[in-house]
């Protein structure tokens, strides 16, 4: 049984790392179609990663070991997060290691490391990006935590398997508090993953960049790992959203291979839909000025807190 559980766990992690760049490619395709451009192939991000891995790494003269270590740390934290988030099966053997609060902590660790790495070379853009990333981060992190609190209050637990099991349990109830939390979660997802309207993943204008400004000094395999980690981060956020708000199709405890297959299919379908919606949102919205970002995130935060109050007042 344990061997089977380990295989399932490993399979999910491998699936996540493999699917994450494809998800990014899918969003890119949808965006291109919506903008009347001819779309790049679905596997474009994978090709990019392969190209980057083969290149010679160029490091700035004063890059410290911290700078070289950070891509591996980022990738490690994101893979670990993927191991905790129930994307296919609910009862992951690794999930007891870290609950949802620890998951928020893992994301924060990644953010702190990438900001520190951005400051390491000592260029103007690097520290600018780090400052902005931390600003977005300190606003988005409490909002995410409050979204989780909504789910915790319903399930009485912070362990993700218990939360998702409770939310996915057969008598489907619509929780009004979760509606607020859902909107807040989408806003946090956009901000945390450097998507429009907070940051533009396709920008070429240095002064408006956040994520890109931080990774300017990275090249080749380091850049590949950083980009892969951010693709994984988006994938993880998407899976978190599915698990909390549309948990249908997830393989429950003790499910057989058939249920797992259904769960993978459901995941792919959900990713497809989410990617399309994300591309639509990005096509329709313009980038906010950087000082509008706090208002955007404060709104997410307040929505999540409102969800908590709704839950406590309605008792549901």
């Amino acid at each position, binding site marked *: 049984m344990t061997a089977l559980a380990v295989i399932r766990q490993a399979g999910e992690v491998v699936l996540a790392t493999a699917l994450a760049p494809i998800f990014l490619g899918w969003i890119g395709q949808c965006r291109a179609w919506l903008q009347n451009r001819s779309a790049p192939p679905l596997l474009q991000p994978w090709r990019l990663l392969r190209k980057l891995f083969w290149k010679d790494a160029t490091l700035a003269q004063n890059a410290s070991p911290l700078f070289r270590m950070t891509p591996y*740390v980022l990738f490690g934290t994101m893979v670990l997060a993927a191991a905790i988030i129930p994307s296919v099966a609910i009862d992951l053997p690794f999930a007891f290691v870290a609950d949802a609060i620890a998951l928020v902590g893992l994301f924060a660790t990644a953010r702190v490391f990438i900001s520190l790495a951005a400051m390491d070379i000592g260029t103007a853009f690097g520290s600018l990006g780090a400052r902005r990333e931390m600003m977005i981060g300190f606003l988005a992190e409490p909002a995410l935590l409050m979204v989780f609190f909504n789910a915790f209050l319903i399930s009485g637990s*912070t362990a993700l398997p218990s939360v998702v099991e409770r939310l996915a349990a057969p008598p489907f109830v619509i929780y009004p508090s979760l509606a607020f939390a859902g909107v807040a979660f989408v806003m946090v997802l956009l901000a945390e993953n450097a998507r429009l309207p907070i940051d533009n993943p396709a920008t070429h204008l240095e002064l408006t960049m956040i994520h890109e400004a931080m990774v300017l000094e990275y090249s080749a395999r380091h850049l590949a790992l950083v980009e892969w980690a951010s693709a994984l981060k988006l994938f993880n956020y998407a899976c978190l959203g599915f698990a909390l708000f549309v948990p249908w199709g997830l393989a429950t405890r003790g499910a057989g291979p058939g249920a797992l297959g259904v769960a993978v299919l459901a995941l792919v379908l959900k990713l497809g839909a989410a990617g399309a919606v994300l591309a639509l949102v990005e096509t329709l919205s313009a980038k906010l000025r950087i*000082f509008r970002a706090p208002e955007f995130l404060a709104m997410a935060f307040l929505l999540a807190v409102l969800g908590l109050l709704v839950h406590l007042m309605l008792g549901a």
Partner: protein
Amino acid sequence: MIVGPAPSLSLLLALVAGWFALGLAGLIRPHRVHFVGRVLFPLGALIALGVALVGLGALRPDRLPEQLVLPLGLPDLPFHLRLDALSGFFLLLLGAAGAGISIFAAGYFRAGEGTAPGLLCLQYHVFFASMVLVVVANDAYLFMVAWETMALSSYFLVTTQHRIPEIRRAGFLYLLIAHVGAIGILLCFGVLQGGSWKFTFDAMRGPTLSPTWATVAFLLALFGFGAKAGLVPLHVWLPEAHPAAPSPVSAMMSGLMLKTAVYGLLRVTFDLLHTGVWWWGALVLGIGLFTALLGVVFAAVQTDMKRLLAYSSIENMGMIFCGIGLAILFRAFDLRLFAALALSAALIHSLNHAFFKSLLFLATGSVLHATGERNLGKLGGLIHRMPWVAVFALIGTLAIAGLPPLNGFVSEWLLLQAFLVTPRIPHPFVNMLVPLGASALALTAALAGYVMVKFYGVIFLGQPREPSLVRAHPPGRLQRLGLGWLAAGCVALGVFPHLGLRATTEITRGAVGEAVRPGSWAFIAPLAQGQASYSGVLLLAGILAVFALTFVLVRRLYHGRVRRAAPWDCGYPWQTPRMQDTAEGFGQPIRHIFGSAFLIERELPSAWDTSPHYRVHIEDRIWRALYVPLGRGVQRLADAVAIIQGGRLAVYLLYAFLTLIALLVFVL
């Protein structure tokens, strides 16, 4: 009074006496740095380890409290000592973190800077000893004597560089607020004795006060200990006094001394007072949250590295008091297990803060010695010059930012878990307020990350902002050892969170009658298995495993070729170190978002200035709103009283005569 044998307490007294002896030995050759640094301070560190072991022994579940009466003190009130689990925990905290500080101090103090090293050694060890006596005192008199000794010895340590006027001013402010707080504590004990006029804690445990008097005692204790802990609005001394002291002393004050305030409040609230009203908890919780938020926001805009850490201490004390407030709240509604959870969170955060804050203050000491700069805007790139300090400081930074798998995360996690069970409180009003509290706590924790990225990034990363930084030298072996000890503590407490929970089991059992499940080395699940669990060691193992696997795979499948080149920076070739963010620059978003919290004075250069100057001065609103009017009021009162102060001896004799007559009339 019959008192049984007290081997641990006797050992503890011998250790404390050893500190006094070391301090006096420092006076023999006050100017011999080598003697003081290489002999006395390392011995002091060994004694501190002994104190920690005594504390550890007192935490064992089968251990009964030990008592001892010393034939010292007032004629009818000898010194009473008591060692129970709560004292033991704080002894462990003081000893374990203090040992690292002492080792660091051994390599830190130099001759020719203010007070002579020998005298410093005396003050330092008296300070240390007085903290230990505070946590084992079992009567109000000894408690106050130790408390005042602590305040005075630390005052002298703060004013080590007494030739600098700002430091004298900081020391005065510290002494003033310490004494105002001490009055509160003294009055609190006065209320607690409840008309029995017995001032031992044993006597105070006995009678049950009426709710009104209990509330008075509690509020006085909160005021008195809050002044020491730096709770808003009594925090103004902290960011002045802590940075003014030499770094090991700053570490002692922030890491250790603030915890005696936590101890004091816990002793009064959970041991001496038997009743508890729910709004006490709400009050402490509210003050704690406000303090935490204000502290971290102010920390984010500081430009002096030690002031930044001092404000961060205010934030952390706020979080600790938040846990205490929750514990009082839960206890008032008889939710004992949850009270135990909140109390454990507060205690573990105290322990964690002792480690990481001491570590960071000491790291600033190394930086200060190496560069002579405290201003963040003039540092940078020190990771290349002092790599060991950078590694240890990184551990402290990640720990204080509350990131897994280090220790700061554990206590934050426990505190959030405690918040999560608050809807079980059968009180609709409190129910509603608590989610807001949780959100404030989450915001504080996230802001702490911002502050620490600024702290670490500006000091250690980037390019040196001043040419003189090229000459910065790494610290000596003793300093590295001290830093390493504290960093190891941060890692151990984070990776094995059950250690902290084990240490608090007996305390919570004594204070609220329950204890959370301590868990095992593999993981902790304080309430129930499926409800919430966390495993520091497996998390670390997971990250390291993925790290190593990725590294090996990348090397195997591809290659490890590296070229070094000039920074890219979007192809801009004329960049200088001055183009990096300064500390002001990094704090700018905070200034923008939380602008109304500060009083900002700014001078911006105009476009035609030939020598442009940018100056910004940020002040605490509370200083102008509360302290300046208060000071003026006191001055006015003093002026009014000064009318009877004529300066002539005959008039004063007349006053004495009249007083005598009045007393005679009163007595007869």
